[in-house]
């Protein structure tokens, strides 16, 4: 977002304090709107996390805590390893033979990579919503939402019915699909599909919900819907969201991690702080530069 009047000011004065110059007022104003927070309880802790593929480091030096019932956003340019890092949090890299995750990631003080918790149980506790809506196209709306529970051995209809209503409501989808639960998921619009995916993830009652650019393929109205949702979801689940869109990060997140690609093209964590701090008074010059260079 460019500043109101002079287009060139920022580029000419990179060393000026972030607090005083160059931050787009509209962003700052959004950050202001974030409610002041209760004390932060870390639920997932990352320490010196690095991920490499075939020995090539994709992201490294990541250390931060994910606070319970907070929204943590990860921002950074393309290729800085946001997705890669996010996928490390529910061991989705296990599928990729060439991927190695080092450092420690703990969930409630149990290292998730040290066998303390079976992967499938980890994943029921740490859910995920992907970049593009990916409902199971062969299943109905109901079956999509039920799928996670069924994968975990829950077959009782009463329980399922209740859980499905509950998570569809939480995803703000119940009213529009209540009458057609048995219809194929593919008949929903893009935005509805993404909310269905959120409902599906919520159905297994995860403690943490990972979201990788959940609105990037959606139109603005659907995006708005989902952003609204995040605020209400925070009450039941901890959220980690990757986004390209700084305004979105500013609007929805409490904490913010900024990643950047280093000289060697490996992403690294530059700064982690409350969203307010990142957007108004970042410590690192590169964070400032990135936030300044951003626009629209």
């Amino acid at each position, binding site marked *: 977002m460019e500043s109101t009047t002079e287009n060139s000011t920022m580029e000419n004065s990179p060393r000026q304090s972030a607090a005083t110059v160059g931050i787009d007022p509209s962003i700052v104003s959004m950050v202001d709107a974030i409610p002041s927070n209760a004390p932060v309880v870390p639920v997932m802790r990352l320490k010196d996390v690095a991920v490499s593929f075939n020995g090539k480091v994709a992201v490294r030096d990541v250390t931060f805590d994910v606070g319970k019932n907070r929204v943590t956003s990860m921002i950074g340019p393309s290729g800085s390893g946001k997705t890669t890092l996010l996928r490390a949090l*529910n061991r*989705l890299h296990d*599928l990729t*033979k060439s991927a190695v995750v080092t450092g420690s990631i703990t969930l409630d003080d149990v290292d998730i990579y040290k066998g303390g918790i079976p992967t*499938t*149980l980890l*994943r*029921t506790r740490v*859910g*995920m919503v*992907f970049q*593009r809506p*990916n409902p*199971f*196209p*062969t299943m109905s709306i109901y079956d999509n939402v039920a*799928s*996670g529970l*069924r*994968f*975990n051995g829950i077959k009782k209809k009463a329980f399922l019915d209740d859980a499905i209503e509950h998570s569809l409501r939480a995803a703000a989808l119940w009213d529009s699909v209540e009458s057609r639960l048995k*219809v*194929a*998921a*593919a*008949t929903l619009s893009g935005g509805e599909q993404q909310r269905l*995916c959120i409902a*599906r*993830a919520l159905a*297994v009652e995860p403690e943490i919900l990972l979201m990788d650019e959940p609105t990037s393929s959606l139109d603005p109205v659907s995006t708005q819907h989902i952003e609204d949702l995040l605020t209400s979801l925070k009450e039941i689940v901890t959220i980690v969201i990757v986004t390209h869109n700084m305004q979105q990060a500013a609007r929805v997140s409490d904490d913010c991690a900024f990643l950047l690609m280093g000289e060697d093209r490996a992403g690294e964590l530059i700064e982690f702080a409350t969203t307010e701090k990142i957007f108004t008074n970042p410590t690192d010059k590169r964070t400032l530069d990135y936030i300044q260079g951003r626009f629209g």
Partner: protein
Amino acid sequence: MTSAALEAPRTDDERRAAVQEAASRFYRRKTLYSKLFLGATSLGLLIAFIPLFSIIYNVVRNGISYITWKFLTTPPQSPSIFHKHQIGGISNAIEGTALVFGMALLMSVPISIMVAIALYESHGRVMGALRTLLEVMIGMPSILFGIFIYTYVVERMHFQLTGLAGSLALTVLMVPLMSVACEQALRGVPAVLTEAGLALGAKKAQVMRKIVLRYALPRMLTAIMLSASRGIGETAPVLLVIGSTYVANWNLMTSQTTLTTLMYNIIQSFYNYQRSEVWAIALLLIVVVFVLNLASRIIVARLNRGHR
């Protein structure tokens, strides 16, 4: 940058005029070339379809008069000098095809699906080698499978010439075809779906069964149908191992006659009038393959309905 562009020898307007003039001049040649190209394609189409139509035409023309209920349901009779039109029907071959081919499908479909899953799930070098082996097998002369079953099962294991030996030969022939095609169907399942399953706490096996197989089903059906119609049309591998029979006996442990082996035998018959029977059998097979093709399309369309 713009200024650099303006330093170029000509002005942009001159440059534009030059290109547009060249394009106008070339326009006629382009059109001519396009017409020639269209002509060549049409010619190719003609050359390809004349024999294909001719086959269909002759099969129908020569075969249609044979296709009666009696022809389909009575056993053959060998003509003789004295009863030359006593050729009877082909119930033996219909039964044999259903039995031998049905058994081959019963064996090859589950095996192929298992192999496809194994290939899909693993990535190592060994699997790569196995896949190459399967591909090489697909390119093998189909008669080799017949020779193999003949030598090592019929002769060595005193297995005799039986329908089952034919089923085995067809199975060995179809498994590589089907498993490679089914693996491709599995690979067509978007990774985001399997990841979605895993992210919900599913095990790989659950993802395979509930998501991957279900999603790949239509393409797998098509793959199986195509391999199956290849199998049903094979002559060489079964010819050697299956023997033949006059009467439908529904017993896999005895010799059988299939439609294709019957065709081969009839074409070698010295009774001219018996030879035209092959067209009737070919017609029958065309109809069967066509119905299979149609059925699989309908099933696939129905499976896909609403969810693509």
